[in-house]
C-alpha cells in the first residue's frame, strides 16, 4: 500500500455485524508513501501506528469508496 498524508484508510470489519472503520493518515513513516502510517481513527480520534493488511484499503483525499 502507498498513501499520503490526508488520505483515508478503510478497514473492513472482522466479525459478523462489525462495521468497517475509517482512519486518516496523519504521518507517513515509510519511504515513498510506504507503511507504517500514523493514523487517526475517525470514531475515536485516537492515533495509532498502522501497518496495513488485506483488510485495509487506501483512498486518496476526495476519493470515494468503490
Amino acid at each position: 500500500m502507498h498513501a499520503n498524508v490526508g488520505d483515508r484508510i478503510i478497514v473492513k470489519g472482522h466479525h459478523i455485524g462489525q462495521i468497517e472503520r475509517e482512519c486518516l493518515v496523519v504521518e507517513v513513516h515509510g519511504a515513498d508513501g510506504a507503511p507504517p502510517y500514523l493514523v487517526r481513527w475517525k470514531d475515536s480520534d485516537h492515533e495509532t501506528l498502522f501497518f496495513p493488511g488485506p483488510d485495509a484499503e487506501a483512498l486518496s483525499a476526495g476519493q470515494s469508496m468503490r
Partner: protein
Amino acid sequence: MRTIDNLRRSGIGIEPHQGIVDAARSMEHAGVGCLAVVEGEHVIGMVTDRDLVRRGLARGLPPDARVDSVMSTPVVTIDADADVHSAYALFRSHAVRRLAVVRGDRFVGILSVDDLLVDLTADLADLTRPVEGEVFFAHHDAAVPAER
C-alpha cells in the same frame, strides 16, 4: 502458500517509549489484543493484553510506565514470503501464539495461531464433506458391469 497470504488483519504498532495506558487504548480502539513494539520499521517486541495485566497491573506499574518494560522479547519472526508450513514449525518449537511477519528487517504484520486455525478448520470442513455424505445418507454402489 506464502505466510503473508494468511494474514487476516492489519497490524497495530506502538513505540517503546509510550506508556502502558497508551498500549491499552490502542488495543481498545483498534480492537486487537496484541501490538507490535516498533522502532521505525523494525519490530523489537510484542505486547499483549495479558502482558499489560500480568506485568503491568499486577505489579502495580504506573500508567505511564514504558511499554517496553512489559513487552515480550525476543520476537519470533517469519519472512513474509516463507511457506506457511514454516510458521507451523515455529509455533511448535517456540511455544508462542503469534509471529511477527517481516520483509527483510521491516515489520509487515502479525500472524496468529487463531488465523491458521480458522483456515485449517475451513480446509477440514471441505475434506469431511464427502465423508459426511457417506455417513448420513444412504450409499448405493454403482452396479458392476456384469449385472448390467
